């Protein structure tokens, strides 16, 4: 149930953020109701925030949160709004805090190799500036051109080149956080904001990453800098059999090549989809049934040596090199998956406008083939019952930072014809998400590698995945957010207040 906001509260918000940074109109509120993940468009009105504020400082965010506590109004943080779970979706109206105006570079520290930024900054724009100094901040999600540092912290994101450079949790050294009470802390490994390794006290950085906005709002972050890569290497290999490609993926990931940035496995359903709609794969012969891609970055001499080792492994695995044009072109497109044309096929083969949705999980390497089969069966069952879902195949990406041989970010892409949503279809979708999550847990994995698992359906299985750890989550939530104002309704955390 959405919470109404009094005019006097709007006046207070205006006094805090300024008259130009508080919005209650349809355009500002409706556009911040959803994220790109499937959304019950037939019930859009249930997710509209009561007011949107764009604060420009940590102090303003703190004052907004304190106000929300006084009036018991929900607060929902939002950065780029590109998440594939529901972290930034208001479930009970309230005040939506959009961090986009906090997009400044505050400090570039050449000695400590850090950059300190507002969390409203985008990685692509940050890197355009860093390039002038010979640096890169290598956090590289599929939403690279449009997601923001604040959202990366809120989801504890995964990076395409994380095997080489680490993922968001490895790249963010510390950050300033407005707690659900409005108090401000610095969350890091311990000590000063630029300390990478500390054993002092609890590791608060990890607690306050990936909470999907339920434990506060990050407003400023100190980030890791790397030398800008001299060289990039990418290679795409075709296989006649998925199992051969899977084995090659494992061999490449276990190669120990220090410049290896990631390995990607395309399954047969993905190739079938690409053969229909992707210029690189349309001309490929039917014998191409699976693809393995990998990339390396770093100093040119090191990349060259490592690349040769990777090429020898791929060659010995029975693959066929697809050529530089596909390898380099397709790899470049991986930095920007949100620009993919959004169309799929209805059952009769006709083109329909569809939204892309990606269900993700962390899956141990040996389990990938079995999980792939089960997930496709779930997608097929959905498509049989509702002519609005289209299985776009699966990718599996190396998931571990610096040691990419264990679990894989495993995703199934499903096209969803959103204009056809109704209650029956939505219920079936939510059940399918539950089933997909159950498969991940059954195979020793985690419900999500990078999106988060707080959406309807999958969230029901979070207590199963975490066991007694979920009780600890509830205790932490209740302790830090006594009034349950910070993004309420997410992660089943309302239970924390029902049992007290």
């Amino acid at each position: 149930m959405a919470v109404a906001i009094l005019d006097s509260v709007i006046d207070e918000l205006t006094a805090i953020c300024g008259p130009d940074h508080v919005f209650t109109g349809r355009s500002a509120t409706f556009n911040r109701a959803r994220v790109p993940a499937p959304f019950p468009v037939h019930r859009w009105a249930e997710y509209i925030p009561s007011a949107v504020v764009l604060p420009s400082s940590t102090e303003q965010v703190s004052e907004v949160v304190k106000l929300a506590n006084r009036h018991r109004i929900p607060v929902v943080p939002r950065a780029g709004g590109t998440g594939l779970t529901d972290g930034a979706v208001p479930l009970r109206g309230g005040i939506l805090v959009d961090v986009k105006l906090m997009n400044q570079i505050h400090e570039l520290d050449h000695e400590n190799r850090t950059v300190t930024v507002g969390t409203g900054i985008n990685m692509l724009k940050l890197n355009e500036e860093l390039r002038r100094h010979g640096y890169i901040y290598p956090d590289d999600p599929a939403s690279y051109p449009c997601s923001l540092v604040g959202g990366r912290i809120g989801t504890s994101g995964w990076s395409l080149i994380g095997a080489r450079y680490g993922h968001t949790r490895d790249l963010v050294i510390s950050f300033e956080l407005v707690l659900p009470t409005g108090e401000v802390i610095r969350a890091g490994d311990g000590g000063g904001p630029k300390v990478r390794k500390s054993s002092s006290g609890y590791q608060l950085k990890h607690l306050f990453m990936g909470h999907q906005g339920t434990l506060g709002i990050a407003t400023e972050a100190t980030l890791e800098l790397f030398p800008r890569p001299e060289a990039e290497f990418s290679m795409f290999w075709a296989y006649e059999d998925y199992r051969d490609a899977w084995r090659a993926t494992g061999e490449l990931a276990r190669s120990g090549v220090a410049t290896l940035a990631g390995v990607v496995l395309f399954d047969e359903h993905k190739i079938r989809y690409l053969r229909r709609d992707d210029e690189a794969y349309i001309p490929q012969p039917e014998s191409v049934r699976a693809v393995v891609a990998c990339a390396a970055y770093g100093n040119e001499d090191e990349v060259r040596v490592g690349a040769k080792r990777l090429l020898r492994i791929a060659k010995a695995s029975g693959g066929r090199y697809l050529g530089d044009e596909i390898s380099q072109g397709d790899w470049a497109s991986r930095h920007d998956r949100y620009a993919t044309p959004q169309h799929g096929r209805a059952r009769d083969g006709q083109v329909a406008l569809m939204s892309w949705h990606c269900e993700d999980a962390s899956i141990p390497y040996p389990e990938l083939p079995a999980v792939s089969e089960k997930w496709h069966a779930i997608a097929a069952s959905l498509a049989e019952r509702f002519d609005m879902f289209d299985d776009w195949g699966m990718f599996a990406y190396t998931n571990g930072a610096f040691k990419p041989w264990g679990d894989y970010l495993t995703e199934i892409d499903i096209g969803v014809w959103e204009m056809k949503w109704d209650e029956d279809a939505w219920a079936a979708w939510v059940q399918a998400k539950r089933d997909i999550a159950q498969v991940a847990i059954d195979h020793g994995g985690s419900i999500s590698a990078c999106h988060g698992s707080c959406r309807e359906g999958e969230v029901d299985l979070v207590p199963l995945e975490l066991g007694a750890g979920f009780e600890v989550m509830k205790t932490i939530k209740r302790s830090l957010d006594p009034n349950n104002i910070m993004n309420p309704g997410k992660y089943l955390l309302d239970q924390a207040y029902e049992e007290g």
Partner: protein
Amino acid sequence: MLGFRLSAQKPSEAHRVTDVVVSRFEHVFEVDPALMREHVHQQEIPNWDFERIVASRWEHLAWMHDHFADCAISAEELLAEIEAES
């Protein structure tokens, strides 16, 4: 910049590539127009705009390579070196 050309104002004839794909320019593919009749209707795109979109895509990919690294190493060249070494 080229000026007005009559031949650039209309789409070229398409030839079939697969059962769901046609092509009007070398290495450039599009969905078979027959599959865009029920729910989505295909727009007629003049050749000049088609070429602009394709060129823009290549520009975008080149920009992305340059954004992430100073150079892209060719696997084809390295494979040739491996062959020569063996």
